[in-house]
């Protein structure tokens, strides 16, 4: 390791991921609408990636001080190309002023123990890092560990406020749509499967905190309607896999369950980006999930093949970039 190699600390070296998840109530206490926005956006959607002012290792702390003063910023990344070597913050400048080493090169005094964010993390996780550390900004790296931007809390606030105005109108229609509920109630009272019932759930991109709610609700609904337990289990498995797929792989979409006398149908529809090779995606073990998704217990590449395994009829149509529709039908034993 060269002396310039920054030590990248994961969250776990200070606190475990679980502690971060458990310990931070700030995001969990936020209003629902804001939480959904936080889940939907990834770090790369809100970070600053252009016109980033940076230093090289040989720049002096004096030039760092001047850059900070002229641009009203309190921290600068030390870069060469897209490689991140360290950070210089106001703290180091104050120490240099006190110690008289303002003309030393940055490489001698920069912070090299860095906490970084991955660009495909949800913003909700990034906020937890802000909560758990005292840094005002985090450098952002891509999968190849190249520097791609800087994220401050201000960037998050700006992006959220901008998006909030657009989202409020949409969120008013977010609640589940019920069609035929009265018929379902009557049928349930009579102990028979309702003639026709349809229910739709909106699935928000990257909202893993709520992923699985729709499938669990579908399971409860079918159980209440008197559907055979073995079929309920199959439908629930497919609904769950499809819900997770829409959540982690798409821009967002919906899960619809249709129940009639003869069958239960689950329709998962998303708004893109579509699957390039559907056959490949339907094979066991194939996945485009990233490490973050895998760390949450998903991305094993079994989703679509699990659906195909449990469903009596399985259909998938996908177009790049408009989106994917998966239909799983389950015959009722009548």
């Amino acid at each position: 390791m060269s002396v310039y190699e920054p030590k990248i600390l994961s969250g776990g070296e200070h606190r475990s991921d679980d502690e971060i998840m458990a310990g931070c109530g700030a995001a969990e206490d936020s209003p629902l609408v804001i939480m959904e926005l936080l889940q939907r956006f990834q770090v790369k959607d809100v970070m600053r990636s252009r016109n980033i002012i940076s230093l090289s290792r040989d720049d002096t702390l004096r030039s760092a001080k001047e850059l900070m003063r002229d641009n009203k910023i309190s921290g600068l990344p030390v870069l060469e190309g897209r490689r991140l070597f360290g950070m210089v913050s106001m703290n180091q400048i104050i120490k240099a002023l006190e110690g008289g080493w303002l003309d030393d090169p940055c490489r001698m005094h920069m912070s090299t123990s860095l906490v970084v964010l991955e660009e495909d993390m949800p913003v909700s996780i990034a906020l937890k890092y802000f909560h758990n550390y005292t840094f005002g900004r985090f450098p952002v790296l891509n999968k190849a560990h190249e520097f791609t931007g800087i994220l401050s809390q201000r960037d998050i606030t700006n992006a959220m406020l901008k998006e909030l105005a657009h989202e409020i109108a949409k969120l008013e229609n977010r609640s589940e749509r019920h069609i035929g509920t009265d018929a379902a109630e009557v049928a349930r009272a009579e102990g028979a499967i309702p003639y026709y019932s349809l229910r739709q759930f909106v699935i928000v991109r990257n909202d893993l905190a709520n992923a699985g709610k729709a499938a669990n609700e579908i399971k409860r609904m079918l159980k209440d309607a008197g559907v055979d337990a073995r079929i309920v289990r199959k439908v629930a498995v497919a609904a769950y896999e499809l819900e997770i797929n829409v959540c982690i792989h798409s821009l967002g979409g919906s899960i619809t369950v249709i129940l009639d006398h003869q069958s239960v149908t689950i329709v998962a529809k998303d708004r893109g980006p579509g699957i390039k090779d559907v056959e490949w995606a339907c094979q066991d073990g194939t996945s485009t999930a990233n490490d973050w998704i895998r760390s949450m217990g998903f991305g094993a590449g079994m989703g679509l093949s699990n659906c195909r395994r449990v469903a009596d009829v399985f259909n998938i149509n996908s177009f790049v970039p408009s989106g994917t529709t998966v239909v799983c039908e389950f015959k009722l034993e009548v």
Partner: protein
Amino acid sequence: MKISEVIKILDGKLVAGGSADGKIGEIVANDLMSDVLLTDSENILLLTSLASDQAVRTANIVGAAAVVVHNAKPLPATMCQVADSLGMPLISSPLAKYDACVRLYLARKAEGTGA
């Protein structure tokens, strides 16, 4: 085997989800939720290192009897809330997954119900 016996064997504690009176069927030790969804058995005991809401939701989908999380991992408050709302017993154990599996295997062997 009852869930209460599982808790005793694993030096665990019931953290959320209500009663420990139910009985367990097969034991599934896995951190990949799609693998868990592949199981066909009812009333499984899910042993996992995944301390997240999805471990509980997945367990509910397959009709599991209970969920055990290892290594005394801190459980997010939302995970406990989901377990309570779904009535899914959630157990925290200080044991590593391997040790937990061995203890349960030996206990079931002694009980004569297989591993």
